[in-house]
């Protein structure tokens, strides 16, 4: 038994199961498979084709990649907009014709020839764009028809000029440079392609036109409703496609200097294969320049390799078709199932053994009583989700709500309330700074500061990125509670870096240390992570020595102490473990004690489940989330612990009707105020024998 548990513990410590789910959340995961396929293909080609790695071969390949890649970029832009452009092959042929007629037949300068070629591409693209963007024709059938039309034009014009094109050679160093020159060993055309690819990448990923394009392709209706000019965006995508194809044609003409009857025939299929193989999704909105480039290189390596192996053209066609089918199939299944797979594997439970708990007996300090059963209720039905409560020096009561506001209940009877500040996210932990500013941890946003006149300012919303974390942990996801050290530093806990505010309870199923303790220093404005790997760190409170703090680790049912200053700086030890429930916020109390809110009590069932990660994994995979076994987070109690961690008192609501769910406490002038993250009320009870003048302000910062 012990050995098997030790093995289980070892297995969950050593095998990072969570990485799979975290990798799936990354957007670059779409590119990994094409990139791997590229590497494998290159290795296979080097292996089976003799002399593959020669300079001549690579230079030739680079020139082909620049022409083919530009057309792939063209198609990528169109597919990103949610359409498709099958006419690229015929457009390419027409543009080649325009370039060669300008150079060879008319003898125009290179610049004019370039303009003529671009104008041809622009006209072709514009026709597609107007038809598909403004007349709302179907992209597939329309470009199929323009493919026929452009091809027919080419077939009509080309035979009449074929001999003229072949008959004369232009004398132009620039033309030859584009076709055959190299720049530091790289073909000029490849340099041109690289510059254009980087430019398109920046436009697509960093600039507004690119974002609009992706928006239109990803969710056309939403883009329309968001006020994006959908018709113009779609039209411009086809125009861009025409222009890029024209540039490709220009490079091709400069390289070959002639054209044949079959120029561009079947090009659309190979480019489409390249783009889809590279990972551009046919549904629109998903894909990048990187995808297009990877796919182009892949397809070119495949086809050129087959040619070098002297395979007939039909084999080429067969293999390209098979690759296209495989790529489209993978694309369809991947887009459909990625989210499903992610939701199945993201929850990654691990082994967590809690110490045995003996149930309280009749005389035990933990025995259930009914002291909260008589709690007075404040703001019943008027607040939603008062996670934390705090009082100012004038006895007014503050709490955050689910609606993203901080509400103030006015002393002395707390019957009237007003919205003190609007934050925008659910404020969790609250604490007063000595100057009267209210600091709050806002779920999903960060740490914010509210001045006494209600002005909201951001304190911090990010910390240092850890080196080896797959998910981006620099952004604060779920800052939970905070406290302020005597020197003004703000210490706050982030409960988990793997879940958002709305699904915080799912973190309980993992039992892993996903949370951290973070410090913000207002003197330098820096935010640093102090401790990581904490199991749902929740309440934070500075100890009275001013050099250490206590923080609760909810799912581990323990309170730990951390020295941030003084001779023991950096020390981290357990203050009190094996609590009877899940500790939430910690707050100072009178007589040198601390209040601990237990948001729920432990159950033997869930403790057992925490030792069975395989069970929890199966549960998360196979059944719906609302049927999962969760810890009890509905009925808790309030504990009072001494400076040494002894439980000296417990307050329960025996009937469970008045105030059973507690996430925070605040002692103020003989009363204990109670908050609960899913409550619709704030409770308060009188503490027998407490100092009627004690306030947290005086305890922290001295008497006013």
């Amino acid at each position, binding site marked *: 038994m012990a050995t098997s548990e030790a093995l289980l513990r070892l297995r969950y410590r050593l095998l990072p199961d969570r990485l799979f789910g975290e990798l799936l959340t990354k957007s670059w995961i779409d590119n990994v498979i094409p990139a791997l396929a590229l590497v494998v293909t290159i290795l296979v080609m080097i292996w089976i084709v003799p002399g593959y790695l020669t300079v001549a071969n690579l230079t030739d390949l680079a020139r082909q990649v620049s022409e083919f890649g530009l057309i792939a970029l063209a198609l990528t832009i169109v597919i990103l907009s949610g359409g498709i452009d099958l006419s690229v092959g015929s457009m390419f042929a027409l543009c080649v014709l325009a370039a060669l007629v300008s150079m060879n037949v008319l003898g125009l300068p290179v610049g004019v020839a370039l303009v003529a070629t671009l104008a041809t591409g622009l006209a072709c693209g514009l026709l597609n764009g107007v038809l598909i963007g403004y007349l709302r024709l179907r992209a597939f059938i329309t470009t199929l*028809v323009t493919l026929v039309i452009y091809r027919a034009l080419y077939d009509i014009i080309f035979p009449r000029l074929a001999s003229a094109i072949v008959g004369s050679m232009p004398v132009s160093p620039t033309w030859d440079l584009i076709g055959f020159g190299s720049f530091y060993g790289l073909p000029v055309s490849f340099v041109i392609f690289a510059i254009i690819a980087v430019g398109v990448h920046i436009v697509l990923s960093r600039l507004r036109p690119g974002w609009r394009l992706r928006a239109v392709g990803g969710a056309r209706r939403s883009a329309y409703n968001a006020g994006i000019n959908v018709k113009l965006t779609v039209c411009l995508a086809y125009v861009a496609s025409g222009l890029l194809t024209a540039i490709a044609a220009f490079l091709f003409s400069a390289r070959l200097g002639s054209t044949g009857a079959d120029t561009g025939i079947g090009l659309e299929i190979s480019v*489409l294969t390249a783009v889809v193989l590279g990972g551009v999704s046919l549904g629109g909105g998903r894909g990048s320049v990187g995808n297009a480039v990877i796919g182009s290189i892949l397809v070119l390596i495949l086809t050129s390799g087959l040619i070098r192996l002297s395979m007939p053209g039909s084999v080429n066609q067969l293999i390209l078709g098979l690759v296209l089918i495989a790529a489209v199939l993978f694309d369809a299944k991947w887009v459909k199932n990625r989210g499903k797979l992610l939701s199945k594997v993201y929850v990654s439970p691990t082994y967590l053994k809690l110490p045995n708990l003996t149930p309280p007996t009749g005389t035990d300090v933990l025995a259930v009583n009914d002291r909260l059963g008589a709690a007075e209720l404040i703001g019943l039905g008027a607040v939603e989700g008062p996670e934390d409560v705090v009082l100012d020096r004038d006895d007014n009561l503050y709490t955050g709500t689910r609606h993203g506001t901080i509400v103030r209940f006015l002393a002395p009877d707390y019957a009237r309330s007003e919205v003190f500040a609007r934050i925008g996210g659910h404020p969790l932990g609250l604490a007063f700074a000595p100057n009267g500013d209210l600091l709050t941890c806002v779920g999903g946003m960060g740490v914010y500061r509210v001045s006494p006149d209600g002005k909201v300012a951001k304190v911090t919303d990010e910390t240092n990125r850890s080196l080896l974390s797959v998910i981006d942990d620099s952004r604060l996801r779920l800052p939970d509670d905070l406290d302020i050290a005597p020197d003004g530093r703000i210490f706050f806990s982030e409960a988990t870096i793997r879940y958002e505010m709305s699904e915080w309870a799912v973190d309980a199923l993992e039992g892993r240390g996903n949370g951290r303790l973070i410090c913000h220093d207002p003197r330098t404005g820096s935010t640093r992570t102090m401790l990581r790997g904490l199991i749902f760190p929740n309440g934070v409170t500075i100890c009275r020595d001013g050099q250490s703090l206590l923080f609760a680790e909810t799912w581990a049912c323990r309170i730990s102490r951390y020295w941030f200053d003084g001779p023991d700086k950096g020390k981290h030890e357990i203050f009190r473990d094996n609590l009877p429930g899940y500790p939430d916020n910690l707050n100072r109390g009178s007589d040198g004690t601390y209040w601990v809110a237990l948001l729920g009590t432990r159950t033997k069932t869930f403790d057992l489940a925490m030792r069975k990660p395989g069970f929890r994994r199966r549960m998360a995979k196979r059944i719906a989330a609302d049927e999962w076994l969760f810890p009890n987070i509905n009925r808790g109690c309030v504990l009072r612990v001494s400076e040494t961690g002894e439980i000296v008192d417990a307050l329960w609501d025996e009937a469970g009707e008045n105030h059973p769910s507690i996430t925070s406490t605040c002692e103020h002038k003989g009363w204990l105020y109670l908050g609960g993250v899913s409550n619709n009320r704030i409770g308060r009870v009188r503490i027998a024998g407490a100092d009627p003048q004690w306030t947290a302000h005086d305890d922290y910062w001295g008497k006013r």
Partner: protein
Amino acid sequence: MSEAAAQGNQARLSSLLNSQEGIVLVLAVLAFVLFSLLLPSFFSPGNILALIRSVSILGILALGMALVVIARGIDVSMIATMVVSVSWAFVIARSGYSLEFALLVGALFAVSAGMLIGVLIAFGEVAPIFATLAAGSVIYGLGRTFFFTLEMQNVPPGAGWFSLIGQGRILGVPVTVVIFAMLCLALHLVLSRTWFGWQTYAMGNNPGAARITGISNRPMIVAQYAISALIAYGAGLVLASSASAINARLFNSTMIYDILLVVVLGGIGLNGGHGKVRNVILGTIFVGILLNGMTIMNIAYTIQNLVKGVVLLLAIVIDSLVNPRDEQTSQQGDL
């Protein structure tokens, strides 16, 4: 005739004239009259028969395409299936097997190719256009690599009955035309009288609703593509019989666009869910008149392609103007 019935007829007539079908009908009649007046050799029984015969093969192929398009699909692999299955059958027949056996093998190949495409679309959930585009390339590559090497495959000698399909006449009417007519009748009966036909329309109208209603979309899709492949094979046999050979290069020609031209011009919307056999006939006749007229006028083949392309483009534009799509109801990924 009562007044109400007359009004109903009038309403039907005006709605017909406003629809694309009506426009094409008027255009077809106009083209016919124009060509008859301008081209002396156009309006003769011999030419009319030749016209119908020459477009019959196109019409047969369009019947297969129509079935798929009505179910909101598209099959651009038909030509590949046609040339490869027929060529392979001829190669088998020439290598010593009986022609009947060879034709059976060809049919089996066509059907299995169609079923595989259907499986890819139905179970692989690949958009039909991409699936058939890629499949066309695969089928052709497969055929040229493994089944036959020559582009031209002549009809095997010693099969007199086979040449009757393309060259014979029944009561003076070419067999080709009779086959087209019979296939039209058969598809018409299937579409309008059988569960299969009704479910095809339902799938084209709203695939999601059809599935919820209990229609087995996936087997239906497989069946539709298998049928269209079989029809393509049949058209290939007719073509081979009338020309005494089949040319694999047809795969690289614009024939597939001609088929789409017939279907779209006839008024079968690419949105799926509507269209009848009479639309195919109408489209076939219009394209036939167009092609025949241009051929008589001695217009070059390349210019004919241009004219066909422009006409098809205009047809699509009119289709989109008659049945506009708006931003709120158009579907994502609807190419």
